[in-house]
């Protein structure tokens, strides 16, 4: 009866009893366990290791009986089951005592088991960074991950919780620490999501939570400035842009255009000197070096794009074929116009 397997059976039983008594003072617990260790081994020797549970009952019951007959206070777990209270108040002036907390925690525990599983999966997926988690590129990706990764992980964690295997005493502290860390990470993750959703002017787009939404073209390329030309191809030096409701269009994203990374934008100003953001084109200056005379950064305006415009019929006039006109590129504020196209004649009219 003293094979390895029989001893591991005995040890497992003793581990579970020990775990159940973990709240007792160390010395008391050591004394109790010293006595019963011999006893459980004797029972195993006499009846066979596989008979230990049958002869002594479930380890939890054994531990509770031991505790009660030794005159110790009931354990939180035991109290939660029995619905009794040891009367010690945890918050003065309230009815919240250890037993109440234990009871409530027991009720909440299955929810934590589920959350725990999903959180572990999220941690693994995000490589540990709460800010990176939940950054799905689309709702479809979110549903896919939720269905095939998060939900199964939650279910597995729940099943582990339901099985209720006692943690050996020496791992209890480590496990509690891990679970607390996981809970804090989860809190951080939730806050991150709430922040991303509620941040002012943030368009709620899965996968774009960390990007400022701004004007983009049909290929999702960021727009950093806007230029307008009249039908003759002449750049319009200054104009307001509004949408169909008259709201100013001012949400450009020059900082996301690689070629405009270091520009400084000068906004048009109203009579009070306040910037007006929907006046275009915006003047954008790029740092090109140090001005040796002033000792400050030397800036140069960013050149407007060189464009070739198709000829269009003047608005409100019948379609008549006019001579083809190629628009010149707009002149830059400094007048250093790059590669000007042939000047176009006035449109037929």
């Amino acid at each position, binding site marked *: 009866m003293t094979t390895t397997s029989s001893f591991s059976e005995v040890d497992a039983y003793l581990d579970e009893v020990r775990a159940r008594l973990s709240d007792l003072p160390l010395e008391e617990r050591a004394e109790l366990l010293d006595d019963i*260790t011999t*006893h459980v081994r004797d*029972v195993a020797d006499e009846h066979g290791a596989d008979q230990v549970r049958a002869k002594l*009952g479930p380890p939890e019951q*054994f531990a509770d009986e031991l505790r009660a*007959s*030794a005159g110790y206070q009931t354990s939180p777990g035991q109290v939660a089951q029995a619905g009794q209270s040891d009367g010690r108040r945890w918050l003065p002036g309230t009815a919240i005592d250890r037993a109440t907390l234990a009871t409530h925690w027991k009720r909440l525990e299955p929810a934590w088991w589920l959350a725990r599983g999903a959180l572990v999966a999220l941690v693994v997926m995000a490589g540990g960074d709460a800010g990176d988690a939940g950054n799905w590129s689309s709702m479809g990706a979110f549903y896919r991950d939720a269905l095939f990764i998060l939900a199964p992980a939650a279910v597995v964690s729940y099943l582990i919780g339901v099985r209720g295997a006692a943690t050996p005493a020496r791992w209890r502290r480590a496990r509690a620490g891990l679970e607390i860390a996981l809970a804090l990470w989860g809190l951080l993750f939730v806050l991150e999501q709430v922040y991303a959703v509620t941040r002012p002017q943030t368009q709620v787009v899965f996968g774009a939570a960390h990007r400022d939404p701004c004007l983009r073209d049909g290929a999702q390329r960021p727009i950093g400035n806007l230029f307008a030309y009249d039908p003759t191809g002449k750049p319009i030096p200054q104009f307001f842009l509004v949408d169909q409701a008259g709201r100013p269009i001012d949400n450009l994203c020059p900082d996301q255009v690689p070629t405009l990374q270091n520009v400084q934008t000068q906004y048009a100003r109203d009579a009070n000197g306040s910037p007006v953001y929907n006046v275009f084109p915006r003047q954008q200056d790029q740092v090109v070096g140090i001005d040796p005379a002033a000792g400050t950064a030397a800036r140069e305006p960013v050149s407007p794009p060189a464009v070739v415009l198709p000829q269009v019929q003047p608005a409100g006039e019948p379609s008549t074929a006019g001579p083809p006109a190629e628009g010149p590129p707009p002149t830059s504020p400094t007048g250093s116009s790059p590669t000007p196209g042939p000047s176009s004649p006035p449109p037929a009219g």
Partner: protein
Amino acid sequence: MRAVAEGNGVSASEATTQLLKGVLDLAVLAVLRTGDAYGYEVVRRLREAGLGDVGDASVYGTLRRLYGAGSLSNYVVPSEEGPHRKYYGLTPVGRERFQREAATWRRFAAAMEGLVRETEEVR
């Protein structure tokens, strides 16, 4: 006790457990009055005396509590083959306690016996 335990299945066993709670101290003291013993021995002797429903854990808890109250002393006897064994024995305080509780028990048992017999005769 044995008769009660074997009478009516689970409820009789439960009744015995309830009764035992009140008298386990005395039962353990009584066993140890006849000689020092280690835990398993105490359990066995209680069972041999007819207290078949006594729980192993309760006996160890009781030993621990009586020891804490100064009624018992203990000493470890090393064993050559098996694990070492912790023997418990009565202290003078324990002997005094046994006398006191035994007297209480006799009065109680006599009263109960009288009560139960009386009502049975009435039926």
